[in-house]
């Protein structure tokens, strides 16, 4: 090596230190890359879960448990839900108690879950969020520009609602054509209000109604920026706009022809939930329930002022 003369050696000398340093850095970065890859949000839960199962006597299932990303894939409705990668206890309500902390907590078994099996619906049609994500933030809030965050107490509280009311809004994505549905009290009330307040005199909904006001068939898909928030107080949300607009339309839209209904808060809230449930969704016909079936399941409510009649949907 010395034969080449000191002109080569000087380059070798200059570069040597850098080459060694960059090589070590390269190695370190690859190690960090591997570490990132294996330090997932869901890894620790998947270690805990089989232990939990064993603790409650399900030794065989604990032994059969395989770690990895788990998903419910339903191409018919475009659902790829990886929530169950963390929410491992979802189908174990018969064994695991409800007192277990999230995310291993079992999904509470209730009347509507029985009819809305995981294999047919997944998670996100009812709960929102980004099912394709496998991180906490990615799946619950979604990334920037994700407009369908997971329903949560915080989100409901921000809008002055309960979780139950927010979920009813999503139920109505499919149950839109129901006359009335058991378990959806606020939406049922709203559907009756639509008849009582005679909304269809001025608005078209699903092909029927008047043209004085805008069509409302897919009101939930409307771009919020097209609304004027100049006279809306509070957060600039579609929700607030609609609640206040329904209560006193002339305040929110000064030159409107819509009368001031001066509705009670629960009425304007219910109607807003209904309006914001009117989305264009790609669900195939077998997912849309027969309108009369739910009506038949309804117990006549003592407070209803009229028997459910087929509403202009």
């Amino acid at each position, binding site marked *: 090596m010395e034969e080449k003369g000191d002109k080569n050696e000087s380059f070798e000398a200059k570069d040597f230190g850098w080459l060694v340093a960059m090589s070590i850095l*390269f*190695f370190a970065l690859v190690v960090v890359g591997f570490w990132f890859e294996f330090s997932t949000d869901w890894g620790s839960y998947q270690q805990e879960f089989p232990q939990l199962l064993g603790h409650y006597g399900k030794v065989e299932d604990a032994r059969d448990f395989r770690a990895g990303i788990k998903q419910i894939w339903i191409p018919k409705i475009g659902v790829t839900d*990886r929530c169950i990668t963390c929410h491992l206890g979802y189908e174990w309500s018969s064994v695991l108690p409800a007192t277990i902390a999230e995310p291993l907590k079992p999904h509470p078994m209730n009347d509507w879950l029985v009819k809305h099996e995981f294999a047919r619906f997944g998670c996100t049609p009812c709960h929102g969020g980004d099912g394709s994500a496998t991180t906490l933030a990615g799946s619950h809030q979604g990334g920037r520009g994700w407009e369908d965050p997971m329903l949560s107490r915080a989100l409901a509280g921000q809008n002055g609602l309960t979780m139950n009311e927010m979920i009813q809004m999503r139920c109505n994505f499919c149950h839109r054509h129901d006359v009335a549905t058991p378990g959806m009290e606020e939406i049922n009330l709203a559907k009756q209000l639509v008849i009582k307040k005679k909304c269809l005199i001025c608005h078209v909904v699903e092909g029927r109604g008047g043209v004085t006001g805008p069509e409302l068939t897919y009101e939930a898909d409307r771009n919020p920026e097209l609304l004027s928030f100049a006279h809306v107080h509070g957060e600039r949300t579609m929700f607030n706009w609609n609640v206040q607009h329904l209560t006193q339309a002339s305040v929110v839209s000064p030159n409107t022809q819509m009368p001031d209904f001066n509705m009670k808060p629960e009425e304007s809230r219910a109607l807003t939930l209904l309006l914001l449930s009117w989305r264009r969704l790609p669900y195939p016909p077998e997912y849309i329930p027969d309108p009369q079936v739910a009506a038949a399941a309804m117990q006549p409510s003592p407070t209803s002022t009229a028997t459910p009649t087929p509403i202009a949907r």
Partner: protein
Amino acid sequence: MDFDRRRILKFIGKGSVLAAFLGQIGAAGRAFFPNVLYEPPSRFKLKRPGDYPDGYTLDEAHRLYVIRQKDAFHVISAICTHLGCNVQWKDTEFDCPCHGSRFHPDGTVISGPAPRALDWFATTVSPDGFLQVDSAQEVARDFRLLVGAKGKA
């Protein structure tokens, strides 16, 4: 820099690059093993036991027959062991429309080109009360899943 230190550093440097490069190859290779499959899983849920009538019920989507005799359940694959067509239950036997294979009610071959009996799949009840089939696990023809009033007996 004296010679020995240089050699050590050279060795560390080359070793680091080699290890890092192998790590990258490993990572790339790992990426080709899918973590999620866009296909029906081998283990899947059907309807609840109570939703099935007595006798032979075809599940077209999953290509199998659910057979119920009061509280006893078992599942036979509808995929003909000859060349994979769906066999048809004809009250007393399975007939395959493609090449004429015929099978007894328990899936064993009566006649035709089929080389072996129809598969019986392992069947359990899922934790939330649905019939669950594992098409990757076969069971013998004396397998019966007994379902009590509250699920698996």
